């Protein structure tokens, strides 16, 4: 320990937010879920909306997300989080209902719920973690798995003839008039985390102003599923995932961003 003498409250630059519980997260070392949880919790703290926030957790690796957010929560059936959130927010228009979903939950089994919630312009925040794989069940193919990528159910790589193409659901959702903010971010560097946090903040601000659906995709890693250490996984993600899922805003203030 260096510089013990500056460990004083007045010198504090960063500490874990109290909108996270004390539970140790079950995620694998280096998993982007933890980072994303943290910044969502920080945004809730900074906006002072802990009493209004309602988390809808998915099925998948983040099935236990409700154990980590110190906010009232519900665990949805697989893929149904946007349906729950639709009702919760309509019944409580001044609350801050958000879903937290992985790629299998949101873009495979829950595609209908996702598209229709976005198309109705439900005033909810959707946080979408895309790591191109089913982590919880042991690394099977996800709708967002890259072509050629090896998973437990594509052991020879994703083959489009057999498995179809990776689903860019975020671009698809941006086409719907109900979405107000659609953006794709990541949490692998400090700068990226700051940008993602800003996007999540914007999403909750939009909700406060009743603007419709705000959708934040976080392209993330799956060290266990990809079978590489965390730092290597982040490098692989930048090289491969970002090529198919480019980082940046897709729709801002209800308008598609011109590329």
């Amino acid at each position, binding site marked *: *320990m*260096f*510089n*013990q003498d*500056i*460990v*004083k409250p*007045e*010198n*504090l*630059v*960063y*500490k*874990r*937010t109290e909108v*996270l519980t004390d539970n*140790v*997260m079950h*995620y*694998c*070392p*280096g*998993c*982007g*879920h*933890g*980072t994303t949880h*943290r910044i969502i919790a920080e945004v809730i703290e900074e906006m002072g909306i802990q009493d209004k926030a309602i988390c809808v957790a998915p099925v998948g690796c983040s099935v236990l997300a409700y154990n980590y957010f110190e906010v009232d929560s519900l665990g949805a059936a697989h893929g149904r989080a946007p349906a729950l959130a639709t009702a919760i927010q309509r019944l409580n228009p001044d609350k801050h209902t958000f879903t937290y979903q992985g790629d299998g939950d949101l873009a495979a089994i829950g595609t209908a719920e996702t598209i229709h919630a976005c198309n109705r312009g439900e005033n909810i925040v959707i946080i979408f973690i895309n790591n191109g794989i089913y982590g919880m069940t042991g690394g099977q193919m996800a709708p967002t798995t890259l072509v050629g990528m090896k998973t437990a159910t594509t052991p020879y790589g994703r083959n489009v003839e057999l498995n179809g193409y990776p689903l860019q659901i975020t671009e698809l959702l941006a086409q719907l008039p109900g979405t107000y903010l659609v953006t794709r971010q990541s*949490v*692998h*560097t*400090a700068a990226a*985390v*700051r940008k993602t946090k800003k996007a999540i903040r914007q999403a909750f601000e939009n909700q406060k102003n009743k603007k419709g659906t705000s959708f934040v995709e976080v392209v993330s890693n799956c*060290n266990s599923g990809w079978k590489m*250490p*965390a*730092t290597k996984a*982040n490098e692989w993600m930048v090289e491969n995932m970002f090529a198919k899922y480019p980082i940046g805003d897709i729709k801002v203030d209800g308008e598609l961003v011109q590329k």
Partner: protein
Amino acid sequence: MAAKGTVVIDKERCKGCGVCIVACPKSVLALAKNVNGKGYNYSEAVVDECIGCASCAMVCPDGVITVYKAK
């Protein structure tokens, strides 16, 4: 250059993923040779160069890093 910042790492909660090590602009952090109660080589400051930028804390998935910076 005199260091202006410091980090306090909750080593029992650290999973030793090393993401903070890559994120640190001053190469302050490294994985310890020792392991914590869960068997992870936790992250620790090994060089007195911390500038209190909090990049490590930003990327830490488990929120185990607290950062201080001298005013």
